[in-house]
């Protein structure tokens, strides 16, 4: 085990990666809500009740898979020692 792995375990790296992604999303949600409110767009309730159509669902599936590959990579990284 090298010094860098001692300092940051794969599990902790996953947590910090996820925390970043979560913050990006929280920032984006607040930004969107502010823009929607300012522009007379759909309400928070309408977003809550929305079911994605099939093409959007396919996009979400692909984005989710890429997201999980990115965030969870440290758990499957080859051992350095």
């Amino acid at each position, binding site marked *: 085990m*090298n*010094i*860098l792995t001692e*300092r*940051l*375990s794969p599990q*902790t*790296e996953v947590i*910090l*990666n996820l*925390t*970043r992604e979560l*913050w*990006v999303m929280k*920032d*984006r949600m607040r*930004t969107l809500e502010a823009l929607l409110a300012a522009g007379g767009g759909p309400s928070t309730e309408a977003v809550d009740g929305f079911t994605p159509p099939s093409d959007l669902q396919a996009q979400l599936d692909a984005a989710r898979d890429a997201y999980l590959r990115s965030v969870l990579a440290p758990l499957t990284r080859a051992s350095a020692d």
Partner: protein
Amino acid sequence: MDIALKQRGRASMDYLVGMAVFMGAGRKTVEADAVRLGLDPAALPEDFAAREAHYNRIMAPSAALKGVEAIEEWMSAHHGVIAIEAFEETGPETAEALEAAAAAGPSTLTLKDGFVAPDYWEGIEFHRTSGGWDGHPHMGYIHGELIHRHLLNRIRPIDIFAQRRLAAGATPVKDPSRIAEFGTATGHYTTALQQSYPGAEIWGCDPSVPALKHAQRAANRHGWAWKLLRAVGEDTGWPDAAFDLVTSYIIMHEAPVAINRAHLNEAFRLLRPGGWFCFSDFAPLGANDRMHELKLFRGAAQAGGEPWAIDYIQTDMGEEARRAGFVDVEAKGLGPNAYPFAVMGRKPETAE
């Protein structure tokens, strides 16, 4: 040149700032743990390796230290990757604008054929840059401006140019007509040199083209005619006895001791008789208290992306300068905590 980051890049840089703020609070807990665990700063060994081992042994029970180190390591490993991602998210027009800015103005960038990057530099991820200083075609902008503006300045706003002007004015040289700089990088110190000596002709070298292009943009933005060259300080190819001042800033700790000696020899060759060299950097061991030195350099070699720093802080560069032939050698701290620490000396007149 500032660029407006897209939402993901902006929020990710904000996250890095938040992590740094969080770590600041964590370090206070580490300091409290040090008191609780009986760490006596006065009992820290002089030898740096022994000092690190002593600290690690006493602090082993501190969960806060492990947590802070984990976050530090994540920040070190990810900040460059996140900044590159934020840069690329802005689209190809950003890179096009940067290229145009580098090309428009009085400065020149010379890339001689046959340049081979030295082993002590090539592929080393200094400062944990992702891929090293040449790891991205616009690494100079990404580290020299984007990270400075969107991360470092927001964590601890300091006037980096004021620090560099302090170093630029450290020698008795009053009105140099020509200055040589080793390790120009993105041009921060070069800017301070130009501000300090508006009439001087400035020649700068560095092995990284992305860094030099960023320096060139800075020069062109102000109308400064810097002569930039892709080269290392130990082998510039510049003419003998053609400079009044040969200088560098935070370069000594980025090179092995043998290369620092070679820099002194090259400075001696480049200076006209009576000219001065001045290399500034972090202070060597002994200039500050041992705990402060430990905070600065603990884990620097691997975790901090500074493979040569520990050798540098244990080297008496003043003595090395005397061996290289310089006289009136001085080595002293210029600012708080002896930073920047300048080593300077004069090339004797032939008759001396």
